[in-house]
């Protein structure tokens, strides 16, 4: 398998793996950097609903999220790398979630945990429930379930680590936080008279195409 984060001229991936088997580590800055930060993803100490109970269970001794380097739940967004949206996002809570996201320093990642955070879940038809947090902030990992078991959260975290490990630190494929011109600010919605305004972040959640109706002749 070709590893995109390892590009040393003159050495193939197979040769590198052969060397590693013999205890010689050949690596690049990118791989080292991503290895370091993928194993120290600090989540924000932030829970919304019943999924948060599973998140707490994942951080306790039985499931022990510390095995993956993410036991440091930070009480301040300034020190957190990962926002786990764990539960139903009501329209009253959505501005706060987006503001917390904006207050987190880059690089930051978002996990939508459970059916509610992904789509509104069983409350999708509710008048006061946001139909998925990805309408406002960019979500990296979706964990289905109602609520997902702690193992599922750990699996999501491992998937996120995989994603972090494969990120480039330069070039056009670099993530948004490494590109000087990329805008990382998500507009914070406000509670309007009937709904939150705006109802979506157009950059992340484009409007569906207009229905083309045949004109009557």
């Amino acid at each position: 398998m070709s590893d995109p984060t390892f590009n040393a001229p003159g050495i193939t991936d197979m040769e590198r793996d052969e060397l590693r088997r013999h205890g010689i580590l050949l690596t690049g800055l990118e791989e080292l950097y991503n290895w370091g930060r993928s194993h120290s993803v600090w989540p924000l100490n932030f829970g919304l609903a019943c999924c948060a109970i599973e998140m707490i269970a994942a951080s306790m001794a039985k499931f022990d999220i510390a095995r993956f380097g993410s036991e440091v739940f930070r009480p301040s967004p300034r020190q957190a790398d990962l926002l786990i949206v764990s539960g139903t996002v009501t329209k009253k809570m959505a501005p706060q979630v987006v503001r917390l996201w904006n207050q987190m320093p880059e690089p930051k990642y978002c996990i939508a945990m459970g059916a509610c955070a992904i789509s509104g879940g069983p409350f999708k038809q509710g008048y006061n429930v946001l139909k998925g947090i990805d309408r406002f902030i960019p979500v990296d990992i979706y964990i289905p379930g109602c609520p997902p078991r702690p193992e599922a959260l750990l699996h999501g975290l491992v998937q996120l680590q995989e994603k972090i490990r494969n990120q480039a630190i330069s070039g056009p494929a670099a993530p948004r936080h490494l590109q000087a011109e990329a805008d990382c600010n998500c507009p914070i919605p406000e509670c309007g008279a009937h709904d939150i305004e705006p109802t979506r972040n157009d950059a992340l959640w484009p409007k569906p195409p207009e229905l083309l109706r045949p004109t009557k002749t």
Partner: protein
Amino acid sequence: MSDHPYAFLVLFLAVAVAFPLVLLTVARLWFRCFQPAKPNAAKQAPYECGLAESGDAWIQFKAHYYLYAILFLIFDVELLFLLPFAAAFTALPVTAIVTMLLFLLLLVEGLIWAWGRGHLEWK
């Protein structure tokens, strides 16, 4: 290395200063070379609980509260003297008891004065 028995402390000091300096310099260099700053209004805000800050930080309390604090202090200090007074009451000479009662009278007089001027009513 010098033969002075405490010469190693200089080495310790040098390492203790150099180690964090190296780490901070590497972090700074990384920030300069790879990590463009991404400030925004929410990130610069002083309050970090998700809610937007509201109102003024310079809240004013009523000066009236000061009188309550003083009156509380009377009883607070009084208690310090009353406890040993009560503990040693039977063994005290008459002069000591009279002196203590005089002290209590002065304090109660202050309370009555404040009460009479209406300071105990919250306005």
